[in-house]
């Protein structure tokens, strides 16, 4: 499907996006049967992945409509940026999507580099790709564990955490941090790879490939898993495009759109990988797409680690970063979708305005059309499948 298709844009007007019949102010009818039972799911709820609050309007178990209330984790990241130098702001972006901190850092560094017209050296780019793709695997593993837990399968959570640990160990040895890595600097990477980095990564590749099969063994053909995920939270490609949904959710709906292919950044043009896409746009397809993505990421890492060039890891960047006056929008394919940074520079050391396009926030919009008419249990499944991180939604 062509993304720039006008019919896709006009889809916004279609009635299934109509929110007018969601009137949460309706007084509670006196009985439960034809009632509109209003339930507050969250902000303290085990399955809303943090502090998302979803107000559900229910008819018995059927969902009539949802209203997301966000902002419980709002830290004003974008405002903070205006009072920090470009270098000082770099660690802050790690705290948005804290399960994919490396991707956040990559997007920010590349955006500033683009603004300054600097290019990172080849070796830095390769290191960036390796770490980012490892982080994608880690993010997807975390998603898989929590998603399966939401649907009631406890065990995959522990399997994925066991394997994610190996990735975090590599991060820790590389840059000293496990979660909020702050791995990259504007203009390249600060750290050279440690001795044995390649070996660690290669060991990890051989270690994790059978583990992904193991997850699939537990879930992919499990009848209950199939029943819980097939035809649940279906969203069409056109709806996705109209809502701006990106990432695996978009690809599972059959739209082949991946920024790594569409507008290659870092060193992605050097590698051979595929973009897995789904057909039905249901929860099961999104599961399959993410599982395939993990494998593709491993492929990229394998290629990158075998062909990692020698050379400097830092481009010539002035000590005080003062980009020229102008504005820039740069986006990368984060594990959850398109992560974009829009930076307006007034020529000073601090950004005049910095705006983040977080994939989780945009993807969360699809929740309503995905769960309307479904059951309460599906809401949980859909929140899980959207793979949101509240730190990124609220910023």
């Amino acid at each position, binding site marked *: 499907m062509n993304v720039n298709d006008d019919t896709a844009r006009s889809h916004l007007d279609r009635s299934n996006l109509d929110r007018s019949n969601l009137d949460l102010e309706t007084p509670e009818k*006196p*009985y439960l*049967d*034809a009632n509109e039972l209003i339930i507050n799911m969250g902000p303290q709820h085990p399955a809303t992945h943090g502090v998302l609050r979803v107000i559900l309007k229910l008819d018995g178990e059927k969902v009539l409509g949802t209203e997301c209330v966000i902002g419980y984790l709002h830290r004003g990241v974008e405002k903070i940026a205006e009072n920090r130098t470009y270098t000082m702001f770099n660690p802050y972006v790690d705290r948005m999507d804290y399960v994919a901190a490396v991707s956040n850092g990559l997007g920010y560094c590349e955006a500033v580099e683009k603004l300054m017209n600097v290019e990172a050296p080849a070796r830095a780019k390769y290191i960036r790709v390796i770490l980012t793709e490892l982080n994608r695997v880690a993010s997807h593993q975390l998603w898989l564990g929590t998603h399966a837990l939401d649907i009631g399968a406890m065990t995959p959570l522990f399997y994925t955490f066991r394997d994610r640990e190996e990735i975090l160990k590599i991060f820790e040895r590389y840059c000293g941090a496990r979660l909020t890595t702050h791995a990259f600097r504007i203009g390249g990477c600060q750290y050279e790879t440690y001795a044995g980095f390649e070996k660690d990564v290669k060991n990890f590749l051989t270690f994790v490939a059978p583990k992904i099969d193991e997850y699939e063994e537990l879930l992919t053909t499990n009848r209950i898993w199939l029943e819980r995920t097939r035809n649940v939270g279906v969203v069409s490609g056109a709806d996705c495009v109209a809502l701006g949904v990106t990432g695996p959710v978009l690809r599972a709906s059959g739209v082949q759109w991946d920024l790594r292919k569409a507008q290659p950044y870092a060193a992605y043009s050097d590698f051979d990988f595929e973009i897995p896409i789904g057909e039905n746009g249901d929860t099961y397809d999104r599961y399959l797409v993410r599982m395939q993505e993990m494998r593709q990421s491993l492929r990229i890492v394998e290629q990158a680690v075998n062909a990692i060039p020698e050379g400097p890891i830092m481009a010539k960047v002035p000590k005080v970063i003062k980009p020229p006056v102008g504005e820039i929008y740069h986006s990368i394919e984060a594990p959850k979708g398109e992560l974009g940074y829009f930076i307006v520079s007034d020529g000073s050391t601090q950004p005049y305005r910095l705006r983040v396009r977080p994939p989780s926030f945009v993807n969360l919009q699809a929740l309503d059309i995905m769960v309307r008419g479904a059951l309460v249990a599906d809401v949980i499944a859909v929140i899980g499948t959207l793979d949101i991180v509240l730190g990124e939604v609220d910023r």
Partner: protein
Amino acid sequence: MVPITTLHYLVVAAALFVLGVIGVLTRRNVVIVLMSIELILNAVNLNLVAFSRMWGNLNGQVFAIFIVVDAAAEAAVGLGILIAFFRNKETINVDEIDLLKW
């Protein structure tokens, strides 16, 4: 202590029956009226089973089982009517159900 005879059971059954009748006659809440009907049916059952023991044959017990079946049917239909009624009138008071149609 006086040995327990059929009469003892009959008195208990009569008491339960009368309680049920009072419930049906005086309560406004339909759910409780239906429950009172269950009380009445139970009183009848107790009588039947007591007589069954008195005469030494099982006809009374078989009747009691039929009455249990009837009670189940009655409860299902009664509560069905109640829900249908509640959906339309939003009340479960028996003295507001005096119209045969609305």
